[in-house]
């Protein structure tokens, strides 16, 4: 299954270049179109060979970590991706910490008294947040926090790298991480709440209650683990979406992660770079999905036994 998916993804990414109208060499070379570069490119991509041979040449290079050299920026695609990827990872990790830290306690409280005042309030809030796209949240946050309140490092183009100043780095990633966290929070809260409510109807919860265990212990020790399966499944899909959703947020704040790099590459018609990023992100998303499937089996062994 995994192999089939990776195969489809790789063929898809490979074929992208051929969606372009005209000679792929002209498009890939862009402003760097001269006889020398053209000869190099033809040799590297095997452009005068049949399309399946081209695919295998391309695939062989990719497996060796060679994504080609951009003829527009004269840098290797692999090194560009290697520089940008850690920023995406940091952004996603931060946003997921925030989202889980808010969603788990909120869902626990809601599930303890479904339809109570707190549950209704959280339900209405999460529903409203669901209807505000991340790019609107980030634009409004920038407007109020970076422009009106003048908090340092929060505005556009003020990214500070982790290596140079970690406090500044956290400040510069605070707004995008928060924005992505909101979208995740809504999804996690809703999924975990409905699962917890279902789990609390089960007999082993009634048994735990009749043993006189505290309601806190029941929620954390007995109800949370079986209810977290759907949460993890959702998180896997959501993180894949975040990679892409993060693109817009990164672009708006000029944070040099993969998203920003991708959009800049699209604008400059740097197609080899676009192709490389699409492939890396797609495979990353698929890997995350499989990793989470593995975790889910650890948490609830009943699933793999079925």
């Amino acid at each position, binding site marked *: 299954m995994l192999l089939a998916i990776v195969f489809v993804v790789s063929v898809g990414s490979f074929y992208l270049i051929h969606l372009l109208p005209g000679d792929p060499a002209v498009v890939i070379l862009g402003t760097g179109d001269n006889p020398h570069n053209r000869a190099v490119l033809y040799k590297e991509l095997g452009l005068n060979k049949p399309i399946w041979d081209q695919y295998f040449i391309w695939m062989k290079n990719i497996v060796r970590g060679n994504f080609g050299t951009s003829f527009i920026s004269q840098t290797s695609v692999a090194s560009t991706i290697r520089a940008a990827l850690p920023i995406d990872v940091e952004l996603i990790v931060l946003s997921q910490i925030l989202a889980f830290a808010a969603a788990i306690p909120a869902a626990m409280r809601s599930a303890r008294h479904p339809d109570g005042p707190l549950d209704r309030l959280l339900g209405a809030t999460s529903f409203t947040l669901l209807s505000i796209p*991340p790019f609107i949240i980030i634009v409004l946050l920038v407007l109020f926090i970076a422009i009106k309140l003048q908090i340092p490092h929060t505005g556009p183009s003020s990214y500070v790298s982790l290596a140079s100043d970690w406090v500044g780095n956290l400040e510069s990633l605070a707004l995008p991480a928060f924005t992505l966290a909101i979208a995740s929070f809504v999804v996690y809260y809703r999924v975990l709440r409905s699962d917890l409510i279902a789990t609390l109807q089960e007999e082993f919860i009634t048994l735990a209650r009749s043993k006189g265990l505290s309601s806190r212990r029941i929620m954390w020790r007995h109800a949370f683990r079986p209810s977290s399966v759907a949460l993890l499944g959702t998180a896997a899909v959501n993180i894949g979406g975040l990679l892409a959703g993060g*693109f817009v947020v990164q672009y708006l704040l000029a944070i040099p992660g993969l998203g920003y790099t991708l959009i800049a590459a699209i604008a400059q018609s740097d197609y080899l770079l676009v192709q490389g990023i699409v492939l890396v992100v797609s495979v990353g998303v698929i890997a995350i999905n499989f990793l989470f499937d593995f975790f889910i089996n650890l948490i609830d062994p009943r699933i793999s036994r079925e």
Partner: protein
Amino acid sequence: MSEALDEFTLMDRPEKNDPLGVLFWICLGWLGLNIFGAVFANLLPLPDPNFGNYSAINASPGLHHLLGTDDLGRDIFSRIVFGSRVSLAVGAGAMIIGFGIGAPLGMLAAYRRGRFDAILTALMYVLLAFPAIIATIAVLSFWTPRALLKIIIVIGLASVPVVYRVIRTATMNIATKDYVIAARIQGATDRRILFKELLPNVAPIGVSFLLIGVATVVILEGALAFLGLSVNPPTPSWGNMINESRTVMAQNPWLVIFPSLAMCLLLLCLNFIGDRLRSHFDVTEVKL
């Protein structure tokens, strides 16, 4: 015989439906207003959305310009009404493609089962693993020049696997119900079962998912506009408007706030209507 079948269908409906409530009708009204504005934008007494009135740049909301003007002196209200065309056209168009392909396949696969279902479902799950947003961004950035129809086609095709999965799950839940089995035992044709038994029961789930799908697509179009992959300026779209006004939002925040509000209200209504319909028809088995 058909009376007996109808009775079965009636009996299986949930007895107490969750009432739809006032908010549902308000949302439906707002959605209707949006559609009306988008369809009849040309006929409404609105100023040209692309006409820059240089004597009224960055005007505040008022009588002449209901929601003010932007930094080029264009009427914001008019641009929002015309901009809704892009959002709604992409939302509706993409879902027509997604449902047009995904829904019949999903129903057929769930009803037929067997090898047809196995192969199709495996294929759809492979496609589902490919992040749709990345695929959309990638294809649109390579498929030049950009046009509204291309955006609709790409997003529409990207939504097929999701629609397929939802409709297939919903159909499978219904296909195992007693009244469908009864119809089959009585010798009803496949066609009759699909159209008279399954379709009416899958439709409510489909409609509620359709509305939430339109909301998702509207967000996606907005994101594409930010990336410069949606319709080309100066054609107004909500995403384009928010994106273009970012640079001047310190001076005139309304430029960002009004189109954002328009988009959020539409999304809220779509999500709310979809959610109410879903609980009204009491569909708990289908996870969206």
